[in-house]
């Protein structure tokens, strides 16, 4: 939709502007100026300055810092703790993306029916999203009490599943999945809402004509619903991926990266290096690597998912 619109000569305030491809006349760039100024001041400028310390040996306090070039990055490649953290980061993200969105989809499908309690259910499932992550962590730490007669273990016992009782946060092999589950619990409602929005966009007529043709529930889902949910899938997968890769608060609050190093991720290592070990310069190097990694994954995802969307 391109058109050049000449405003009436009587109003000299509106200069001639060429129409953009998206149609419509673009407003003056002044509209974007205040936002840009604040954003650049608060995020861009400090990040660039901060990134500079990745090339120093700054401890985080005091004046002593000397330029060390790429030393921090070389050290990072050899750092066992960081490599283990990378593995945990990837595992955690995978679990979150798959389960949180799977659960969200199931919840959305269940709520998007004629059941009477759907309005209430929507609120209930979304409510944890609204609670502070630190709060959720404390809450779940209490629930994950390993004593057989407390918290989750007590509930399992009460419903006859006593043999499933675990040391949720203390077992090094289990801890990271326990943390993942907490995050999934908190954010499944978020995925649900986005899927719900997507489901609203599936025209009823398609389902009705398919039903007339004799298609069952599963078939209808596969051929009608699922392809049309592509945009919702895109948003959900992208958001949960970035969220998973940069997850920090819940891990520190629940396990501090332990037991041992079992739940350390790149974000927790980053934090510890900066504030606990007194190695701020090195931690910034980790931060830069993490940022680049997240950006790369996001761009790859966006390309793949957008292609999928348009082919649907």
């Amino acid at each position, binding site marked *: 939709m391109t058109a050049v619109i000449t405003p009436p000569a009587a109003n000299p305030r509106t200069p001639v502007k060429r129409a953009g491809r998206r149609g419509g006349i673009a407003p003056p760039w002044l509209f974007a100026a205040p936002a840009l100024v604040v954003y650049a001041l608060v995020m861009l400028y400090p990040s660039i300055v901060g990134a500079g310390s990745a090339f120093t040996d700054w401890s985080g306090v*005091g004046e002593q810092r000397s330029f060390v070039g790429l030393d921090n990055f070389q050290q990072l490649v050899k750092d066992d703790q960081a490599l283990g953290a990378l593995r945990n980061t990837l595992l955690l993200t995978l679990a979150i993306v798959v389960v949180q969105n799977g659960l969200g989809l199931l919840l959305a499908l269940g709520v998007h029916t004629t059941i009477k309690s759907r309005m209430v259910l929507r609120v209930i499932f979304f409510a944890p999203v609204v609670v502070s992550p630190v709060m959720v962590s404390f809450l779940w730490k209490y629930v994950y009490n*390993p004593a057989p007669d407390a918290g989750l273990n007590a509930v399992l016992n009460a419903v006859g599943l006593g043999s499933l009782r675990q040391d949720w946060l203390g*077992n090094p092999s289990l801890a990271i999945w326990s943390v993942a589950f907490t995050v999934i619990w908190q954010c499944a409602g978020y995925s649900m809402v986005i899927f719900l929005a997507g489901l609203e966009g599936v025209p009823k007529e398609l389902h009705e004509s398919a039903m007339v043709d004799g298609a069952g529930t599963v078939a209808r889902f596969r051929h009608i619903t699922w392809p049309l949910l592509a945009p919702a899938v895109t948003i959900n997968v992208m958001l949960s991926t970035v969220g998973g890769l940069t997850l920090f608060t819940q891990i520190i609050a629940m396990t501090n990266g332990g037991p041992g190093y079992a739940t350390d991720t790149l974000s927790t290592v980053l934090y510890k290096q900066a504030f606990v070990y007194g190695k701020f310069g090195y931690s910034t190097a980790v931060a830069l690597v993490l940022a680049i990694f997240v950006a790369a994954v996001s761009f790859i995802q966006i390309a793949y998912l957008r292609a999928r969307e348009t082919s649907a």
Partner: protein
Amino acid sequence: MASEIIRTPVSRRRLLQLMGGVAAAGALANCGGGNSSGNSGGPLKVIGAGSQEAGLRKALDEYKKQNGSFEFNLSFSPADQLQTALRAQLAAGNAPDLHAVYPGNGSAMSMVQLSKANLLADLSDQAWTQKIPAGFKGAYQQDGKTHIFSPGTSVLGAIYNKLAFAKAGVEIPTTWSELLTVCDTLKKKGIVPLALGAQTPWVTQLINYALVPGTVYAKQPDFDDKMAAGSATFAGSGWADAMNKYLELQKRGFFNDNPNGTTYEQATSMVGTGKAAMAVQVSAVLQAYRAAAPSPDDLGMFPLPATDVAADNWIPGGIVVGLSVSAKSKKADEARKFIEFCGQPAQINAWAEAVACVPLYSEGEAKVDPVLKPFLPYLSGDKAVPFMDQRWPNAEVQPTHFAVVQELLGGKTTVDKALKKMDDAYKKTA
């Protein structure tokens, strides 16, 4: 969303102008335009550690009573927030006038690390600094200058529930073998012998800290100097003995189930209610333990015997978290006057009593919590070792210690590998 060649020339030019403006604002900020850091007028800003609240608050209130015009703004942070928030303030040059600092070395907020970065004022001209015992100079001083005030020492031992002991008919053990027997008897009576809340990182170190004075320092009092010089390592020392004893307690089932999943609060509650008989802890937590018990007198404390040779059983006694004056404070004089006040014998006694520690020095009878009496002979007999982290050269060794203990308890590593990790961390440059 393909790129579009049509552009408004005006907007590009103006955009670059805008970027220039942002850069200029940035440069201005760097030159320190506007309010400079620290506060020159107004109340004295104090940030303390949660664990010193009782004593610090009392001292400030008392000082204000005696100096009507004194104004202060006090807030507290738990230990992990101290690391981050306070360090960020120090980094930006905006530290409070008085803030919590850990004695000695070994942590990012320790006296040595901060004084090396020239962030702490020199307090050496104050009277109380002359009373620092030789054995504790390392906790207070760097290069001969005193940078931190602390009211005294806390000790590390076994807090025990007297009722639980009575129920099982056991007495306080004085040797390692006796300890094992006591635990065995308690276990048979269905009481958890030792409550261990290893999910909370700082709890993991305590049993080792209780054993190492006996297994290492009793025979090698200058162990820290040797390590600093490179002629001793964790791996080749009595640390291995301590770690093995730690694991032996676990193997024999003397801990509660799932120590790695049990928090400090849960362990406290176990001992307070009598479900567990003992917990190895610092004396500073006595308040919390007493609050968890039906009656505060249910609890006592005794030194944990590390060996079977009574003379070798030393105790850990560490200077408690203290207070320093920020080197960049604009109210340094006022802050120092307050510290001078805290250094007076009456004040030291008051603070020490509030946080259940042994006063740094006392004129006359030391007012000490009766529960701590068994420890005094060790302190006066020079059989006390400062908490080990206070002599470690960088901030990474202690968190490594926490992590490897959790790994050991979880069966994910061996004592040799654990000690090697600690040695590797020790060697890293600060």
